[in-house]
């Protein structure tokens, strides 16, 4: 999907990320997802009269880590109250940063070489979580709303991009790269499905060379796929409107993933309706140089650098290999690959196994270490484990951990001696004379037939490559 020649879309993204702190931004209540409703609250995050906020040092560390990873400048900042009435925010204001954010001016380079400016990345508190009862279950049909304040006061950083993005695919690439950076900085777990990273998209369209059009803000973009689809839909909607003589109205629109459309949520209020004013209960936040430098020194390598490091191990990387490198870095297991390569495993094998076998949720493989991964692949490379066996060992290690060789023994994976395989092949050839004759006369497709028979007889334990070698060796005898 794209706009007609001569037209372009302009996109800016606002990404909210919850920070991986133990406690909330202004009180000592636990910041943990999934607890029983309303069990993590106190007078501060419930907005009870007389309570006073005290800033969490770790949240400041992580906010600065995000800013520094995005090449922004850390500056003295202040907190403001953003006033509005809504039941998920019991104080009737959100503490945020306004004209003096902690991080300003930065950029993010995308894998395709394009650069997107970062206007700011500021600290603020999250709101409670509402669920809507009654009617169709959608917001407008709800009869009652239920509020859980466990999330109220959880630390957030809002990262605002410059309007530098020109396509839905670029927006997606930006969000994916930013997500990787947030995880690498230790600031976020990047889990969009749990709402710990949330994206709003500002979209407008205009004729190239003319001023930007009026923008609309998309909400409810709960995955990278939704983000991309919503932006494409919205740009086309606006183009169709303008091309037919209509006018785009500045408003907030809700993305409906099931129907694949955006719909008006509300007209945009004037910014000053929030009556921002300085939070009188908090003092300035002006991290001294030593604090900033300590955070900078604690930052590990970012995804771009880690991709480059893996790519450098490959001699002439193919597109598929580059994709696999991207996947491995996204999964945060490039360290596994490096450990395997250091242990003498071929780079190709290490990258392929990491990208294909460990593609699931990183939290679902608590037992796997770089060492275990490396040793398993070394056993496979040495021929002690077949490919299938190595994969099974990896998935067993992922759950329970342990020593790969011991795990393989427990699973009953023993190297099948070549003479044992020979004996098995001897028998199979005798049992299937027609198939053997055709293979012997050059029909290579039959190799698959015999390999399959061997695998069935050995319950997958034979090494397919070894079987193939033995078959070839028998030809023409």
């Amino acid at each position, binding site marked *: 999907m794209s706009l007609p020649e001569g037209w372009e879309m302009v996109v800016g993204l606002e990404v909210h990320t919850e920070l991986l702190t133990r406690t909330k931004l202004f009180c000592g*209540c636990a910041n943990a997802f999934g607890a029983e409703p*309303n069990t993590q609250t106190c007078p501060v995050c419930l907005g009870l009269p007389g309570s006073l906020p005290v*800033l969490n040092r770790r949240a400041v560390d992580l906010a600065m880590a995000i800013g520094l990873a995005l090449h922004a400048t850390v500056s003295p900042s202040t907190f403001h109250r953003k006033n509005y009435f809504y039941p998920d925010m019991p104080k009737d204001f959100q503490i945020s940063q306004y004209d003096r954010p902690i991080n300003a001016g930065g950029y993010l380079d995308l894998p395709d070489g394009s650069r997107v400016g970062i206007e700011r990345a500021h600290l603020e508190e999250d709101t409670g979580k509402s669920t*809507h009862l*009654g009617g169709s279950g959608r917001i407008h049909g709800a009869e009652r709303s239920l509020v859980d304040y466990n999330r109220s006061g959880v630390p957030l950083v809002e990262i605002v991009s410059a309007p530098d993005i020109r396509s839905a695919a670029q927006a997606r690439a930006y969000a994916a790269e930013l997500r990787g950076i947030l995880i690498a900085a230790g600031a976020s777990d990047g889990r969009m499905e749990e709402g710990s990273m949330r994206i709003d998209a500002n979209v407008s369209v205009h004729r190239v060379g003319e001023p930007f059009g009026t923008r609309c803000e998309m909400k409810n973009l709960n995955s990278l796929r939704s983000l991309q689809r919503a932006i494409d839909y919205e740009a086309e909607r606006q183009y169709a409107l303008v091309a037919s003589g209509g006018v785009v109205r500045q408003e907030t629109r809700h993305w409906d993933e099931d129907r694949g459309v955006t719909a008006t949520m509300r007209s945009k209020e004037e910014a000053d309706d929030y009556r921002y004013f300085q939070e009188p209960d908090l003092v300035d936040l002006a991290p001294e140089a030593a604090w900033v430098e300590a955070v900078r020194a604690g930052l590990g390598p970012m995804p771009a650098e880690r991709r480059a490091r893996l790519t450098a191990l490959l001699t002439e990387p193919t597109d598929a290999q580059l994709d696999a490198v991207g996947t491995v870095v996204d999964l945060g297991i490039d360290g596994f690959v490096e450990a395997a390569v250091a242990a003498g495993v071929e780079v190709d094998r290490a990258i392929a196994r990491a990208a294909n076998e460990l593609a699931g949720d990183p939290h679902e493989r608590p037992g796997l270490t770089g060492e275990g991964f490396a040793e398993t692949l070394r056993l496979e490379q040495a021929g002690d484990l077949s490919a299938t066996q190595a994969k099974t060992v990896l998935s067993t290690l992922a759950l329970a951990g342990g020593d790969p060789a011991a795990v393989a023994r427990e699973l009953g994976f023993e190297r099948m001696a070549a003479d044992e395989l020979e004996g098995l092949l001897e028998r199979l050839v005798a049992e299937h004379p027609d198939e053997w004759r055709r293979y012997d006369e050059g029909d290579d497709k039959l190799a698959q037939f015999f390999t399959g028979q061997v695998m069935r007889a050995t319950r997958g334990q034979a090494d397919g490559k070894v079987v193939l070698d033995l078959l070839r060796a028998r030809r023409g005898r």
Partner: protein
Amino acid sequence: MARLSREEVAKVARLARIALDEVELERFTDQLAQVLEHVADLEALDLADVAPTAHPHGLANVVRDDEVRASLDRAEVLAQAPDVAEDRFAVPRIIGEAP
């Protein structure tokens, strides 16, 4: 500085969800205007070389360590709610979404 208008006071009152009748609107417009005029006296001073002051205390970087403290008992918390369902605060239905 132009004197504060009744319309501005009415707008701020509406945003703050404060109902004012005509007499109150008149009275508060007058009172608020006096406060603003008093503060506007500062405009007579040359403050070009004075850095903005965020807070009179002169303090900065008041932070606490990231250590969990006990939260309130849920029964006690929910006792404050106008209505409760599924261990949550039940409120009249919400039109639209938070800004």
